[in-house]
């Protein structure tokens, strides 16, 4: 297993690509690293290539080109699968078996100890319905059984693809708490989602995928970018001149009658004082921090523009 700054890399892909025919590229030259012990959020809009990537990491889909290593092994081999727990898209179990028997089947496949069945059912709070047939389960219960199956091996790496799909708000909150708990300590979680709030709350590091390509990677704070302050003061030109001279201000931008200062938001009171002292009227002062949603829309929107321009150009040429 290779290392990244002293941390073992559990998942590593290099130039990973999946093409369907000559027209569709689901995953395009993807370089991804997931370190031991982190909760990695794999973020992207629907159809961005998240599930295809995860399926390749589990050996369900063969890549067209590129390499992938999971726990230092080739994806889909018994050596790699023995330490990986996974829930890919919607959970899939045998409808005629009970929840308990379904986990028994999974335990037999994986060689997990039968005593783990009770433990994981308890963990996902499904013990009371364990003897019911799977086909009678609600969507939320099916999802929880999927997580229980993924935990059965007590895996080093947990791959969860949209685990909160179909859950009600309470179920989503419970699932987030569960994933956060699971990610504590040595276990690594690779969580795919298009729900930004979910990723923002749970993940240590995030990778954003768009049209099969990784367009950004970093901690949530890194992706949000530099923090600062929004200031509404009059006259705005005078306010900008004063702000540029203040200590700690790295950048001043003017937009829509407001200033955006790149500065530690803790210095808001100090800035306010200087502007008022200079005789300016300050009507608004608030922290300027991009939400992950804003970053996400920027990243995915920017990627769409060239494509849109290209198609518009093609349409013009055809006309």
């Amino acid at each position, binding site marked *: 297993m290779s290392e990244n700054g002293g941390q073992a890399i559990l998942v590593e892909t290099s130039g990973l690509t999946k093409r369907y025919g000559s027209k569709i590229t689901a995953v395009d030259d993807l370089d991804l690293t997931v370190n031991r012990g982190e909760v990695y959020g794999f973020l992207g809009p629907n159809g961005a290539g998240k599930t295809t990537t995860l399926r390749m990491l*589990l050996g369900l889909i063969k890549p067209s080109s590129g390499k992938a290593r999971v726990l230092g092994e080739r994806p889909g081999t*018994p050596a790699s*699968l023995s330490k990986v727990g996974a829930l890919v898209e*919607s959970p899939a179990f045998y409808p*005629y078996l009970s929840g308990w028997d379904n986990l*028994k*089947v*999974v335990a037999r496949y*994986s060689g997990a100890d039968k005593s783990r069945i009770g433990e994981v059912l308890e963990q996902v709070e499904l013990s009371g319905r364990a003897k019911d047939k799977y086909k009678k389960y609600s969507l939320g219960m099916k999802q929880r059984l999927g997580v229980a199956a993924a935990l059965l091996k007590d895996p080093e790496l947990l791959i969860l693809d949209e685990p909160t799909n179909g859950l009600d708000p309470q179920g989503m909150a419970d699932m987030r708490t569960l994933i956060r708990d699971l990610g504590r300590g040595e276990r690594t979680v690779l969580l795919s989602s298009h729900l930004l709030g979910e990723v923002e709350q749970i993940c240590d590091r995030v990778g954003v995928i768009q049209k099969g390509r990784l367009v950004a990677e970093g901690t949530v704070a890194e992706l949000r970018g530099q923090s600062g302050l929004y200031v509404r003061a009059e006259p705005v030109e005078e306010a900008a001149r004063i702000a540029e001279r203040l200590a700690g201000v790295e950048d001043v931008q003017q937009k829509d009658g407001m200033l955006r200062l790149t500065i530690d938001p803790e210095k808001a009171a100090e800035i306010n004082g200087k502007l008022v002292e200079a005789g300016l009227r300050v009507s608004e002062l608030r922290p300027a921090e991009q939400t992950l949603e804003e970053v996400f829309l920027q990243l995915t929107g920017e990627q769409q523009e060239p494509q849109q321009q290209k198609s518009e150009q093609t349409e013009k040429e055809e006309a």
Partner: protein
Amino acid sequence: MGSSFTAETLKLRKRPATWILALIWVVIIAFSYFSTYAFIANTPPAGPPPAGPDGEEVPAEVQEQMQAEQEAFNEALLESLYPENLVSNMMTGGVTNIGSALLLILGALVLGSEFGWGTFKTSLTQRPGRLGVLFGKLLAFVVALVLFVLLGFATAALCGFVIAQLEGAAVDWPSLTTLAKGLGAGTLIFAVWGAFGFALAALFRGTALAIGLGIAWVLAVENLIAGLAGPNSDNETLETIRKTLPGENSFSLAQSFGSPLPDDFTGGFQPLVEAGQAVWVLAAYTAGFVLISALLFWRRDVV
């Protein structure tokens, strides 16, 4: 593969479809025995045949001969149900007809349903790997088909025994060698059709088309070729093709155990292919179908 095998046996054992097919198998064997017995028991003695077109009566000696023939046929039919004819009865009746179709359905269900439920993404992300899962499944299926053969023979033996008791006839059993050969041949015939179901399910990634086409092959295609290459045809190519078909070889292997009825009533029917050749052809088909299933399962993406 061991872990996969135990998982597969649990699934097969708890699957209602397995038990429903087993029940159909038992009911059809018992029905064929007892419906034949009921037919014999309820056939009235042959009365005077109808008069000819010009009102001419059939001579008494012809009437007696016809009556004797009918009684002899009923007697032979009754004796065919006795335990001594267990193997030939099962091979020519149950195994090659309904049994093969049931095993084709079971084979298609065992593999094909998993595509429909999407459960391969669950099993294939556990430890065994693709071929481990597939061969565990195949091994569990082989156990199931052997149990199907044993169940069929046990049902037929019980039915034959009950009928012999009802008739007060002596209960003689086939020799152990004949029984062992019958069980082996039955297993081989079931294996080829089960593997055919497996391969079709792997090819079409589902059950509906696999079962539909499989049954169509058994009932229509092979019968059509057999009809075209029938005794009145001198088309040697069709005759050669016919000798290589799995259905024809299954039938020939079954026929090698003889007919439960004397030749007087069957016209001394001879199998098209010799038993030895049929065994090799069927074994080759089974291996071929397994190989096709494994290749498809190994190479294709699981989406």
